[in-house]
């Protein structure tokens, strides 16, 4: 930490002095690569969409099929993130607190959705939940259809989003001080009261961050969804798929407009995540 006095006595400088060499080279490589790969392409998209003009942009963005696709993407991602929040917190709790055979394997398997290519997950889930699949054939007599309906999209998004919740909540759970629970118990709280009033509120910021990460990932997800969704326009067609369809029609303005709306909404999500983390650091002393 540099004290305020020391800082104010020196004039403004871009970086603090250091004997370590290579700052210029490392920062130069970083900025050049970042600009070429990320900044130019992304600003190209924003430039293209601004080139459409406001009224054209609004017209494309409010196209009925586009609005439907965005609603489906955000709606299914939200439901999947809620399911993942509940089961992710439960799974993290079981992994942190209980002992059972094969625990280490299960813990490692939580990261499977990060490692398994989305297309592979997509065809596997479709095979399982199709009306003639293992799970689908069990549900078919009950009149429940999962694959080729919006429910199928939710299933795929639960798969891709689960590790986000578990991996944000788990480390925080491990740090919980046992004394807090002991104190609650000594003061006469039942176990249920201790969990619901003492433990869960402390896990709220981590849970919300995991929820937001899973939600953001679900909104943009493509590979695992397109196989199981059925892709019926207005019913089970997600926004990323509509972008691909518009691209194949060489309708670049429409593809650009949908992408710009999605990008805008994702950046807002990113902002929300940052606000949650800042609030959490102030309130609970950790950044989730």
């Amino acid at each position, binding site marked *: 930490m540099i004290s305020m006095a020391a800082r104010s006595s020196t004039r403004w400088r871009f970086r603090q002095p250091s004997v370590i060499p290579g700052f210029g080279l490392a920062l130069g490589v970083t900025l050049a690569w970042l600009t070429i*790969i990320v900044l130019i392409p992304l600003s190209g998209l924003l430039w293209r969409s601004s080139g459409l003009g406001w009224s054209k942009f609004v017209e494309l963005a409010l196209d009925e099929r586009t609005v439907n696709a965005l609603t489906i993407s955000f709606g299914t991602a939200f439901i999947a993130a809620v399911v993942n929040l509940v089961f992710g917190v439960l799974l993290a709790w079981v992994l942190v607190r209980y002992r059972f055979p094969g625990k280490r394997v299960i813990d490692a398997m939580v990261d499977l959705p990060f490692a398994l290519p*989305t297309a592979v997950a997509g065809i596997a889930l479709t095979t399982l939940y199709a009306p003639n699949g293992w799970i689908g054939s069990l549900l078919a007599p009950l009149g429940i259809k999962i694959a080729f309906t919006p429910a199928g999209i939710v299933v795929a998004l639960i798969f891709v989003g689960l590790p986000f919740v578990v991996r944000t909540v788990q480390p925080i759970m491990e740090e919980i001080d046992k004394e807090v629970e002991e104190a609650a118990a000594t003061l006469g709280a039942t176990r249920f009261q201790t969990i619901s009033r003492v433990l869960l509120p402390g896990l709220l910021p981590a849970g919300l961050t995991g929820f937001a990460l899973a939600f953001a990932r679900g909104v943009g997800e493509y590979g695992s969804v397109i*196989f199981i969704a059925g892709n019926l326009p207005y019913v089970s067609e997600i926004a990323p798929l509509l972008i691909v369809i518009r691209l194949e029609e060489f309708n670049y303005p429409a593809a650009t407009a949908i992408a710009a709306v999605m*990008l805008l909404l994702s950046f807002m999500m990113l902002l929300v995540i940052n606000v949650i983390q800042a609030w959490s650091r102030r309130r609970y002393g950790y950044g989730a």
Partner: protein
Amino acid sequence: MAHDAGYAPDTLVTAATSETRLSRVVLTIVALGFVALFLLLPLATVFIEAFRKGAAEFFTALGDPETFAAIRLTLLVAGIAVPLNLVFGVAAAWAIAKFEFKGKAFLTTLIDLPFSVSPVISGLVFVLLFSSHSLLGPILQSYGIQILFAVPGLVLATVFVTFPFVARELIPLMQEQGTADEEAALSLGATGWQTFWHVTLPNIKWGLLYGVLLCNARAMGEFGAVSVVSGHIRGQTNTMPLQVEILYNEYNFVAAFAVAALLALLALVTLVLKTALELRYSDEIAASRRH
């Protein structure tokens, strides 16, 4: 720390700070049931479907020339994209972790940006940049340079989606390690490169491997971004995940799942190595990974 010495072992824990045996069993069963239903069953399905018609059929499917070309293309694209992001990741971590400068937090946010962009949009941005309707496309084409529907486009899209992996792994690790080792080496007369090769690199090698592992898994498995820029030219611009899609849509399920099984195997190897690194070298990978 949750497990410090002063705290009683599980057998002596009083009921007041633990759930009843019944609720523990029920919660464990519900959680494991969820894992089985959503994670283990899909994974098992991949291998079961791949071998549904026997091992011979499985290997015949993999021997198909188009599938073989897809495997080669995937290895080529990952073989270019991963080293590029490795160099970038080390440079970014060096600048961010070893120095204090203005705008550092903003730079870190920018590096993470590709994670919050839909894979389809990651591909779309390159289509907009290099298509024949764009500014750059016709110019490059007049020089005979093909970006879209060719290897360079696949590499660009893959580099974009795997951009943050190595940097994000190294930054917290190198921040934690500080600059004392490097300062000692420099004061003993080592040059900058000597310091990096003999002091910094040995310190970060396991974290680096960890980042490369995750980067590679994503590079080989990426679907949405490469799907948009590939053009799906059979035997030429189809990577393994795209080949899975084509075979599946042709109802050639055994072949689709055979390629999928290879990718699932890659995922399992990645998970095993990742877990081994976490267990063996937990102190030498970023603090955030320590459980």
